[in-house]
């Protein structure tokens, strides 16, 4: 139990996917303009991450022990088609849920956080439960980073920033400062 909690907290704060591993930067820099959208994108990403962990575990256990060189290709194909399938079923079963989360799903599939999660989980030899907790932590960490970034960006909209800095350069510098703040969490585990 302690192990699982450790995995969750460390992926959420210390090894945050966005701020420490640079995974999922495209939506982090691109879609983080509004708080509301960022939060929903975070939720949708968490959902896809959990599906990914499940797919990765199934593939690793039943298929890839026979053909390890197919790892990358099979991860991409299986994850993309599973997400597409789920997207279609959500559209059919719950149109309101689809409206709030569904539009993001196809975009998220090509996000490097998704593939990154599958590869990290494989490299570290996580089992099914550990993989799912890892996915939840990564998703929560991504949502946290997105929401923080969106909050800061909404504030800076009304600030007087030189034209030359506006845009990606400014966002990257904000991200750098956020990342520095998150480094403080690294001390969380050193005492134990």
């Amino acid at each position, binding site marked *: 139990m302690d192990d699982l909690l450790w995995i969750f907290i460390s992926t959420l704060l210390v090894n945050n996917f966005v*701020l420490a591993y640079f995974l999922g*930067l495209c939506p982090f820099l691109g879609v983080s303009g509004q708080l509301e959208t960022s939060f929903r994108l975070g939720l949708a990403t968490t959902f896809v991450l959990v599906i990914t962990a499940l797919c990765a575990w199934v593939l690793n256990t039943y298929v890839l022990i026979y053909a390890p060189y197919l790892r990358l290709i099979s991860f*991409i194909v299986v994850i993309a088609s599973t997400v597409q399938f789920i997207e279609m079923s959500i559209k059919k079963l719950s149109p309101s849920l689809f409206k709030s989360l569904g539009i993001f799903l196809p975009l998220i599939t*090509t*996000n490097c956080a998704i593939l990154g999660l599958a*590869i*990290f989980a494989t*490299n570290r030899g996580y089992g099914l439960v550990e993989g799912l907790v890892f996915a939840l932590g990564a998703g929560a960490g991504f949502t946290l980073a997105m929401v923080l970034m969106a909050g800061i960006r909404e504030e800076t909209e009304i600030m007087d920033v030189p034209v030359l800095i506006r845009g990606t350069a400014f966002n990257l510098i904000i991200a*750098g400062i956020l990342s520095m703040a998150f480094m403080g969490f690294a001390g969380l585990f050193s005492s134990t």
Partner: protein
Amino acid sequence: MATDTTAYEEMIKGLWRDNPVFVQVLGMCPMLAVTNSAINAVVMGLATFFVLVGSSFLVSAFKQWIPKQVRISLYIIIIATFVTVVDYSLLALLPAIHKELGAFIPLIVANCMILGRQEAFASKHTIKFAVMDAVGMASGFMIALFALGAVREILGVGAIFGVDLFGQNFEPWVIMILPPGGFLTLGLLLLFFNWVTERRKQFLDKVADAERVNANG
């Protein structure tokens, strides 16, 4: 001869005017994660170069046979194949660096710059143009990676390619080789790039103004 100059232009545009990192801001994930030293950045750049040129060639060569509805999936499978080749080659040739780059070699697949070039360019042009474009874009990407890696290694370790630069008295800025340093360095490099572009534009405007005055006088 005319086609040769345009092919050359396709190649050159990736280096500065349409630089994938500084202008289009694509391919950020591998960009920041592996540039904590110059040598890692160069290896990553070469790997991306191989994948981009290889897949552009293949996509362009097979473009008549790729059905429109499944093209994106096919591009991804082609890219993933090349990445697997790179992954296993690096594991055999440079095991130390492969270990350090770790999961970020397979993640070349998720580099949106590569998929973007297939969709925007290679699928619409002849093999020659597609390869030229890929060479230019990949070189531009490599230059950006190297710039970032070199700055971070020089400031963060006080060395370049592992060669000590400043001697004993240099106090390394450890933050530069840690994640925040990546964000900050790239932000500042982008700022520098914007500044140079802006200066150039002002200079050209001034030249145009002077010419107009000359013409009127």
